[in-house]
């Protein structure tokens, strides 16, 4: 493929033709902030935070939608660029609640990151602010449109990855907001609550309801694992705080990317459910009562052994599980065949 060579902040960078200035900078390890840009989604070039200065150009182009061309001379942190970015942040903050104090996204918010990075305080522009009611009428997602910065990533995620087109921009000008058709709530829309919009929201506008109050983002340990539901095998991060799973967030899975479904993203509550079995149970006088492990295991071995002894190994049957790991199924197959001595092993593949 054809390459182009350009200069960014005094460094020569060579990228395939068709790359954007943003991609070229990223390749060279040069930081450019972005809010509306996402490599997986189309680029509307809307937020302008990624503007750069390019020698010979009249204005500051958005690097995410400007193609890198040969000989281009780019500055990513000239004073004009910094000033533009600061102004954009000031304008965004002029209509953004000042509640990082308790915001669920505190610590994992791009608007906050950039405000800190560029030393921008709120309150440089005074003006009207939105006062939308916070939408909490579904059990999965909280929508606080007061925090929305109109980057439109949720809209594009829903349309371009999930393919459901539930939300879009509604109204005009200052009143523009992201909404389902007829500006109803998500709960009343056709939303299937995959939460993929939450995964891309750069601010606190979309958050996981069950994670509210469960800990700050920096307190959570993320453990990458595989979803326990259907056979697709999506990868996600279990968010752990104080030895408990308090949430599921997207990571970059080989099968699913950042996409998850409602079960994978919001169906983890069973892990710490009070109904979980915590002790072995043994039936005594018709009732299941708690017992020790050694007692329970001894009884299992004795009883299975007795059936084998009396009626032969083929009088024992083993149901392994499509819910358990490969290692566990392997051991079950070994237990049935080598220890008990029967091929009576199956699982619910057909159900």
């Amino acid at each position, binding site marked *: 493929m054809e390459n182009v060579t350009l200069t960014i902040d005094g460094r020569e960078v060579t990228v395939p033709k068709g790359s954007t200035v943003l991609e070229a900078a990223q390749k060279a390890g040069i930081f450019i902030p972005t809010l509306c840009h996402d490599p997986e989604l189309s680029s509307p070039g809307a937020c302008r935070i990624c503007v750069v200065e390019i020698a010979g150009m009249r204005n500051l182009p958005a690097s995410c939608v400007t193609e890198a061309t040969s000989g281009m001379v780019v500055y990513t942190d000239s004073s004009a660029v910094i000033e533009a970015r600061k102004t954009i942040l000031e304008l965004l903050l002029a209509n953004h609640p000042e509640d990082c104090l308790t915001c669920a996204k505190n610590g994992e918010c791009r608007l906050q990151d950039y405000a800190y990075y560029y030393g921008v305080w709120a309150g440089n522009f005074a003006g009207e602010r939105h006062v939308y009611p916070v939408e909490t009428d579904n059990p*999965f997602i909280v929508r606080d449109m007061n925090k929305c910065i109109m980057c439109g990533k949720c809209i594009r995620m829903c349309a371009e990855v999930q393919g459901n087109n539930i939300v879009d921009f509604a109204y005009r000008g200052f009143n523009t907001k992201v909404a389902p058709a007829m500006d109803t709530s998500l709960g009343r829309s056709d939303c299937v609550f995959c939460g993929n919009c939450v995964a891309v929201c750069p601010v606190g506008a979309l958050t996981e309801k069950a994670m509210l109050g469960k800990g700050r983002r920096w307190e959570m340990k993320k453990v990458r*694992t595989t979803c*326990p*539901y*259907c*056979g*697709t*095998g*999506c*990868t996600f991060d279990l968010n752990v705080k104080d030895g408990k799973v308090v949430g599921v967030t997207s990571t970059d899975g*080989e*099968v*699913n990317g950042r996409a998850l479904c*409602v079960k994978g993203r919001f*169906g983890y*509550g*069973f*892990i710490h*459910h009070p109904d*979980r*079995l*915590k002790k072995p*149970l*043994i039936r005594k006088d018709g009732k299941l009562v708690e017992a020790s492990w050694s007692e329970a*295991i*001894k*009884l299992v071995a004795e*009883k*299975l052994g*007795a*059936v084998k002894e*009396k009626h032969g190994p083929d*009088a*024992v*049957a*083993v*149901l*392994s*599980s*499509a819910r358990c*790991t*490969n*290692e*566990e*199924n*392997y*051991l*079950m*197959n*070994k237990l049935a*065949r080598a*220890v008990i*001595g*029967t*091929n*009576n092993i*199956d*699982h619910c*593949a*057909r159900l």
Partner: protein
Amino acid sequence: MTNTIREIADTDFILAAGTNTTESHPIISIQVKKAVRKGAVLAVIDPRKTEVAGLAKYHLRIKSGTDIALFNGLANVIIEEGIWNENFVKERTEEFEAFRETVARYTPERVSEITGVPADVIREVARGYAKAKNSTILYTMGITQHICGTHNVFSIANLAMLTGHIGKPSSGVNPLRGQNNVQGACDMGALPNVFTGYQPVTVEENRVRFAAAWGVKDLPAKPGLTVGEMMDGAGEGRIRGMYIMGENPALSDPDANHVVHALEKLDFLVVQDIFLTETAQLADVVLPAASFAEKDGTFSNTERRVQRVRKAVEPVGDARADWEIICLVAAAMGYPMSYGSPEEIMKEIAAVTPSYCGISYERLEKGGLQWPCPAPGHPGTGFLHAGKFSRGLGRFHPVEHVPPDELPDEEYPLILNTGRRLYHYHTGTMTLRTGALEVAYPEEYLEINCADAGKLGICDGDRVKVSSRRGGVEVAVRVTEMVTPGLVFASFHYPEVAINRLTNPARDPIAKIPEFKVCAVKIEKVS
């Protein structure tokens, strides 16, 4: 799956048969939608008007249990119009003539009569499938859960071989598997007739090898019983002891009343699970197991990708990982199993399983691996059957249409179809205890067509008793165009609506899969 999930997005023609993809496999449906957005033609075969059917150019709303006729009809058109892949058939397959003779009898007009799909639609779909550069077939249990389930799959494979739409990227035969590790459980020999990696127990060489690896004198040669046969055996007293790990047959298996009776007859039942399931309540001993978040291991997904499961938290209470419990049981039965970690078990799996030979935890840290992965340096296999089928030549299996085991009659005038809902999973053991999913979707309902509802004088939300010859449940109805007249549908997620008390345990003679998708029922309004 013969292909990788992400390959679906690059397909030109998708034939989705008996798969409610957006609800049962939401993330795979993302790839289907992507393909459609890129211009692929989607044809959906389903008696229900599912969401994915709504996205399709062709919705072939067949009568339940007429899939073979339809696939034979498609093959008939493709051969009649000379749009089959002669080269592929000649070089890669055998027994074509017998197949050609059989499908010759399935003219579009005759198939239209059997299936209810217009002949023109059959012709158009056949042409679209055959002529597209890449065509893929997706199917799930709408195809397999019939007394002719295996033959249904044969008829699908026949179509793929006839057109050469197999053995290349984005073209193939792709069953979407329903459970996180159903693929892995099969791979690991949790089946009555094979060791790991589908090595038959009937082959002496395999038995000798495994006996040596496991340090035992010999291993049983006779294939064992499938789950349905185990239940029959328990009912008849041939099976006296049962060890059930992480399954809930009292809700998931057909004719659930019969299953409960059979389990009650056992001398000894041990159930290992994370909750006190309907099955565990029948047990003599219940062993508390760790959930997926509390243990290490691997799952193999529907595209044969082996991926890591990682321990995030300690097991609740005294619960223990299933692998640890099995080791304890084995040791107590006089066969010490001393594994320090699942990683050690995987090393043993790789040593005895050719298709998993190259898989190790060290490699899985860098990402999943799709089997066959026959050597430590092997990159894994994205799509199967490139250049050659596993058995050499692909064999055409001519198959004939057979009606379902139980069809409606005067007493039981409706067909009951069963399946899944987006918000729930299998017997609801987990999804009904999440604090979120069961709030969004609190109860089950029976889908019934407006015409049938009108005849029975039932309105949306009314409670009815739906019953078959085997049992009945009470459930609220939803009057909908999702189902055709004469068809009703419910999921099996809810213990309160244990729909499998009704389903027919008649099984496919080869795969032993029950006919969950068709049984005759009647409906009475309850006041």
